[in-house]
């Protein structure tokens, strides 16, 4: 049976994994290569590394970080942050990533999705969408807005519509982050995740709001997510993929239990 995936996310700044509380109070959480290996050992189904600052000067550091993290990693490995061209993507693949995640650049230049997919396959292109409900709209889900620049700028695009376009242009997966839930540990946005998941045929990874095991059960059932991403709940030993997955399996969610 196809299992639901638990994805461990490492937010990287200047070669270190960091965790911010609502974008301030950045705390050092460790070395990316060490943490990636630890998550894989503990049963994470996939590792995502996001360069959260993605400055031009940071490019070399990122590639070096990807290379080090990929060296002993034998589960799918996705890298995102600042990938603006097919050439950027190629460098990240050469460094050892299996997938790249594109966000603002794909919105500004949607043909980028097709360009990367035609060289590396659709399975290698993850389109990341930062979403916020529009409380003023008649239908806050259908009219949910796509944001860029870490949630600071509204694009005028609707989330479900953009997800469908990304699929048509050759995206292999959608990484949907709810800006309303992100960092709250109050649960994923299940309604929005379900709306996107039902609108596309490609897998949807839910992100933002993970705090308890029940939040994951919820997003896999009610939210119809194919995978769920979590960062902060893992880093400081709050829980591990192993514990989380065992509890989810017990709750009836199909899980790969590592030996």
């Amino acid at each position, binding site marked *: 049976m*196809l299992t639901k995936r638990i994805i461990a996310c490492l937010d990287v700044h200047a070669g270190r994994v960091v965790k911010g509380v609502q974008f301030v109070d950045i705390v050092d959480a460790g070395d990316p290569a060490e943490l990636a290996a630890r998550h894989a050992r503990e049963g994470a189904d996939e590792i995502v590394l996001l360069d959260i600052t993605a400055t031009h000067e940071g490019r070399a550091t990122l590639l070096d970080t990807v290379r080090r993290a990929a060296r002993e990693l034998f*589960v799918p490995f996705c890298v995102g942050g600042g990938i603006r061209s097919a050439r950027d993507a190629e460098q990240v693949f050469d460094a050892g990533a299996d997938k790249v995640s594109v966000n603002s650049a794909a919105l500004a230049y949607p043909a980028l999705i097709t360009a990367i997919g035609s060289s590396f396959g659709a*399975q290698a292109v993850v389109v990341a969408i930062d979403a916020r409900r529009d409380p003023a709209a008649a239908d806050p889900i259908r009219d949910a807005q796509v944001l860029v620049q870490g949630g600071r700028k509204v694009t005028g695009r609707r989330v479900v519509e953009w997800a469908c376009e990304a699929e048509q242009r050759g995206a292999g997966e959608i990484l949907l982050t709810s800006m309303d839930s992100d960092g709250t540990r109050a649960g994923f946005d299940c309604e929005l995740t379900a709306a996107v998941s039902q609108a596309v045929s490609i897998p949807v990874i839910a992100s933002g709001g993970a705090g308890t095991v029940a939040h994951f059960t919820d997003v896999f059932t009610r939210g119809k997510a194919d*995978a769920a991403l979590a960062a902060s709940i893992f880093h400081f030993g709050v829980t591990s993929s192993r514990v989380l997955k065992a509890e989810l399996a017990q709750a009836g969610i199909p899980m790969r239990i590592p030996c």
Partner: protein
Amino acid sequence: MRVTVIDYKAGNLTSVLKALRHLGAEPTVTDSDLTLVERAERIVLPGVGHFQATERLDRTGLTAVIRAAIARGVPFLGICVGMQWLFSGSTEAPQQPGLAAFPESCTRFSESKEKIPHVGWNSLDVRPASRLLAGVEPGAFVYFTHSYKAPVTADTAAVTTYIEPFASAIERANIFGAQFHPEKSGETGLKILRNFLAVEPEAAC
């Protein structure tokens, strides 16, 4: 060991090379050097994306030298589209022939309420005599990402079910195929690659 990895511009080879090196093999990549196939002790054909990409193998002459190497008994492993290429073709690119080491054809998953592509970790129901999958625990999980699949036949080494049962691994004499990505399937995947590197050469015909 001289492992030749075939590059036909269908995706990224870094992960396959990394896994082979991790296991102590010395992989060499070629996209056109036929002598590297002629001298190979093992041949690996990875690949993601569209079946049509295998046309490059015919154009560069790789198909013919791979066919000859397989006939000499060189162990061959096709991964993902590389496994599908071992069949006579795929409905993904009906005009493009495969190697036809296996006479059947690959087809798209039937339309259902499930998503296509099949992406993620799914389990293997391993047939007991498989050498490629020797020592793999029953129900072990491996990582898949594909929309087309091979039928279950007498040459099937493992069956996986998504929408319908399909051949997740195939095996006959020195010819092996994995629909999943062993290089991305954790310890289980490494064990499978290790088995492939250890298998004794044996002529297919």
